[in-house]
């Protein structure tokens, strides 16, 4: 591995690699992953047909299935480029939505944080397998799969302005529910408007540091402003879509003569029957996740209004995907090409002027939301044109785990994690003790280190830091 920039490392092309690998990391982060299998995964991705320029790793890179988490790769369908479910992940369109709270005095919100936490957990079902009050009928599920967040807004669950501040405006237009299996539908039907468990969460936060006052003001993130961060995805619907297509893609890889260094990297040419079917089904799952975050948003609004009065409101700042594959136009060697960009545990980061950035933010760049662990902080950034040049418009998505779940539980055994958070002024409500122990702060890297790399690399710029005082986990 060679250092080729301040925070950029290259894995030279060797063996079956079609392109080099590139990893964004500080010296300290590189030292922490030097012997981690994630670097081998960057090399493995570089062997896939039709890959363009580099196989990329963002600074929160860690071991995944097939692709590393924090992996980005673009493929050219016109040159036999592939689509890979492992390059998206099981939780299709796992992502984050940031709300700016209006009409609530921060001091009052903190004083009532305990009740707020209880109310939020009651309003948004969280925890293993938990379904919610919205039980979709078959035709409704199809509508969600086609319409995404728009489906919800058309039914009065939110406002049209919510959609303007979502990646893809909250709807993957290419979604095809016909490609979604019966099992995925059974799993998804009761789960719309739910959080899930693991590292999914809702947090109520306050802006505690501002790095760019002008941009922060435009986003509604002045110092002391209240925010809500929602982290969830496509639930069982998306998990099953990925699982169904992994099984088919293993066979398809063999049929298309694709050598797999790792079975979890199974893929097929984008321009093949199974490739296009997966793309359509993935789009349907993407829409389920957008609708999910839209329903959760509305529940948050209802809780705020009930707790703090009719003036309390929450405005969508932005909604980003972390696990996705999309057709995007990028300039490569001076020529614009349509590429299939896979982001697995990575966030889109388009700079000022990009036509896909909402009009309200186009002069600023796309908001990039990077959550940290529940005891520390998260960051809001804006995208940069350098990301479009160097990483297919991508950057990091979170902190990345340091400890396995088993080790985290062992560490937490003689501790009282909710009490520790309470001492920090954080009120925690969770569906189960197990997740809380597994999600303690010690289990994660410091997201500030990850964001620092992204800033130094010019992939995105810090705008504000937010700290939680209410945490809801599944």
């Amino acid at each position: 591995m060679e250092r080729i920039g301040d925070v950029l490392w290259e894995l030279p092309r060797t063996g079956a690699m079609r392109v080099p690998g590139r990893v964004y990391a500080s010296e300290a982060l590189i030292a922490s992953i030097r012997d981690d299998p994630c670097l081998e995964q960057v090399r493995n991705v570089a062997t896939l047909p039709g890959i363009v320029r580099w196989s990329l790793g963002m600074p929160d890179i860690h071991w995944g299935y097939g692709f590393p988490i924090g992996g980005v790769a673009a493929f050219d369908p016109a040159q036999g480029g592939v689509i890979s479910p492992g390059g998206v992940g099981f939780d299709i369109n796992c992502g984050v939505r940031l709300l700016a709270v209006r009409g609530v005095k921060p001091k009052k919100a903190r004083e009532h944080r305990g009740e707020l936490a209880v109310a939020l957990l009651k309003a948004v079902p969280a925890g293993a397998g938990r379904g919610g009050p919205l039980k979709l009928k078959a035709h409704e599920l199809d509508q969600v799969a086609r319409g995404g967040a728009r489906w919800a807004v058309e039914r009065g669950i939110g406002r049209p302005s919510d959609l303007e501040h979502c990646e893809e405006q909250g709807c993957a237009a290419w979604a095809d529910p016909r490609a979604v299996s019966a099992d995925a539908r059974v799993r998804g039907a009761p789960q719309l408007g739910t959080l899930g468990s693991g590292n999914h969460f809702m947090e109520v936060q306050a802006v505690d540091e501002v790095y760019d006052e002008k941009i922060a003001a435009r986003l509604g993130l002045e110092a002391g402003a209240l925010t809500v961060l929602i982290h969830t995805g496509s639930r069982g619907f998306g998990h099953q879509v990925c699982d169904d297509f992994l099984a088919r893609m293993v066979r398809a890889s063999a049929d298309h003569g694709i050598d797999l260094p790792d079975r979890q990297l199974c893929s097929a040419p984008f321009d093949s029957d199974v490739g296009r079917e997966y793309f359509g089904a993935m789009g349907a799952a993407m829409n389920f996740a957008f609708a999910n975050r839209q329903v959760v948003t509305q529940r948050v609004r209802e809780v705020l209004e009930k707790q703090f009065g009719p003036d309390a409101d929450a405005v969508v700042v932005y909604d980003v995907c972390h696990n996705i594959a999309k057709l995007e136009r990028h300039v490569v060697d001076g020529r614009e090409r349509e590429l299939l960009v896979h982001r697995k545990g990575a966030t889109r980061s388009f700079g000022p002027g990009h036509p896909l950035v909402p009009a309200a933010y186009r002069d600023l760049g796309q908001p990039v939301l990077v959550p940290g662990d529940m005891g520390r902080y998260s960051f809001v950034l804006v995208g940069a044109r350098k990301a479009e040049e160097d990483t297919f418009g991508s950057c990091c998505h979170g902190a990345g785990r340091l400890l396995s779940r088993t080790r985290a539980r062992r560490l937490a055994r003689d501790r009282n994690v909710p009490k520790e958070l309470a001492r920090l002024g954080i009120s925690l409500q969770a569906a189960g003790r197990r997740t809380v122990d597994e999600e303690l702060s010690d289990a994660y890297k410091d997201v500030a280190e990850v964001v620092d790399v992204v800033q130094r690399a010019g992939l995105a710029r810090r705008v504000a830091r937010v700290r939680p005082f209410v945490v809801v986990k599944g």
Partner: protein
Amino acid sequence: MWRLEEHTADVCLVVEGRGWSGLLEEAAAAYGAWSAGEDLAPAAPREERALAVEGRDAVEAWVAWWRALHRLWTVEERLAVAARIEPGALPALSRARIDCVPAAALAEGALVDAKAVTWHRAEAAPILPGAPEGDWRGRVVIDL
């Protein structure tokens, strides 16, 4: 018998059993015990389901077995707690009767939310090479 191995953000289960059939039976017990945190009440109501899996090799059949157990839980809402493998089971084709507990009988707070069974580091083989009648060991990673 089963144990957890360290594995990043997800879970790695290592299972051992007598022969191919014993391995699958231990895996079914492991799935239920791990999912429910070993808090399954002895009096929890039981139902029976039939499962059949096939694979071109032992690893493929092993992953297929876990996927079948996972589907039983996530789609049919029945948590496997024990299995009886029918005589003559081989990786090529294995049939079984599964003892399972309906979701409604389980305390939600204790359960683990698993997304899917992965192929990652999947292994299934006799512990002593060339001794298929002896003990087998299998490993599976489940995405949480």
